[in-house]
């Protein structure tokens, strides 16, 4: 296991990368959200993660799990809407799994705790056209890759990102059953879910950061990059 200082640096870099990515994708997320929501997802995510990234110096003396927890509370206070509790509240809750440091094992526990909290708080299951559709495949794939297949964390995370990407694509042709989009009923079919999309972006940045720290790149499975249509 990397020492606490390296872990903290990795968490802070991940935070920076996520904040930067969400700022880049702000308009894209807003476009997705204006089709089936209230057009604030891009701005909300940019603001929340931006505020958290601004606290880098404040976080510099904390244990890695404390940094993660404080990212959560910062999101809760700054993201707004349902995303505050769903992203921030779940990160805050799951951070307790990292108390003993970040290892392959605790990262699985973190991912599961995060998923459980999102499902519990939002009440959505797979197929409701929400962030859960990206999270469930990602977390299940990550857990299985680590625990059953004994893959190194970097490879497991790469598989998880691929799984999330397929989950995002799955949100397009289905009807929303939860969240603001569900009020649109059949009109929500054909649109990609913004929450699943931002979840994928976050996971991609975690992978990006992990590649820097865990030394090495991994080939991801053939991906339908265009199908998700991110801003470049």
């Amino acid at each position, binding site marked *: 296991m990397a020492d606490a200082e390296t872990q903290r640096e990795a968490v802070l870099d991940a935070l920076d990368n996520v904040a930067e990515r969400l700022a880049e994708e702000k308009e894209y997320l807003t476009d997705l959200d204006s089709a089936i929501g209230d057009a*604030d997802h891009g701005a909300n995510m940019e603001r929340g993660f931006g505020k958290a990234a601004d606290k880098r110096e404040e976080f510099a003396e904390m244990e890695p799990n404390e940094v993660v927890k404080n990212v959560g509370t910062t999101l*809760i*206070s700054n993201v*707004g*809407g*349902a995303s*505050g*509790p*769903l992203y921030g*509240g779940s990160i805050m809750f799951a951070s307790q799994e990292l108390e003993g440091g970040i290892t392959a094992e605790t990262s699985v526990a973190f991912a599961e705790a995060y998923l459980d909290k999102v499902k519990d*708080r*939002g009440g959505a299951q797979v197929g409701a056209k929400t962030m859960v559709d990206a999270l469930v495949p990602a977390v299940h794939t990550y857990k299985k890759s680590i625990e059953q297949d004994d893959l190194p964390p970097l490879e497991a995370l790469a598989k998880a990102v691929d799984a999330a990407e397929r989950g995002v694509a799955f949100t397009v042709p289905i009807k929303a059953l939860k*969240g*603001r989009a569900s009020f649109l009923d059949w009109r929500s079919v054909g649109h990609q879910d913004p929450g699943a999309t931002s979840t994928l972006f976050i996971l991609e940045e975690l992978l990006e950061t992990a590649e820097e720290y865990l030394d090495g790149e991994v080939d991801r499975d053939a991906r339908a990059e265009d199908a998700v249509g991110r801003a470049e």
Partner: protein
Amino acid sequence: MIGLVVVSHSAKAAEGIAEVAAQMGGGNARIVPAGGDEDGIGTSPDRIREGIEEADDGDGVVVLVDLGSAVMNAELAIEMATDSEAVIADAPILEGTLNAAVETTSKKATLDSVVERAEDARDYRKLN
């Protein structure tokens, strides 16, 4: 006395509901509106937590909510307000708050009885 917190996406709606309910409670009920967020329409866990702390005189608080994120942010606020006992009533926000306000002024009111009265409002019909 049991306190009430009214959580709507609109600060004005929360204030208006609190105003109507305060009248029903004979002016004695402890009702705190906690609507809107920093940007206007929305709900804020920090605002709701402050509302819970303000409404609580030690007897506990019942939270009335409108939709979606109001429920999630109220849950989160309750988890954050660790010094207060607070529960959400699964009730229509206006009618539920009115019922709850009346119940809180009863000498025998408990958290359970206030929640129950608020939730009675689920069955109200407007036309016979």
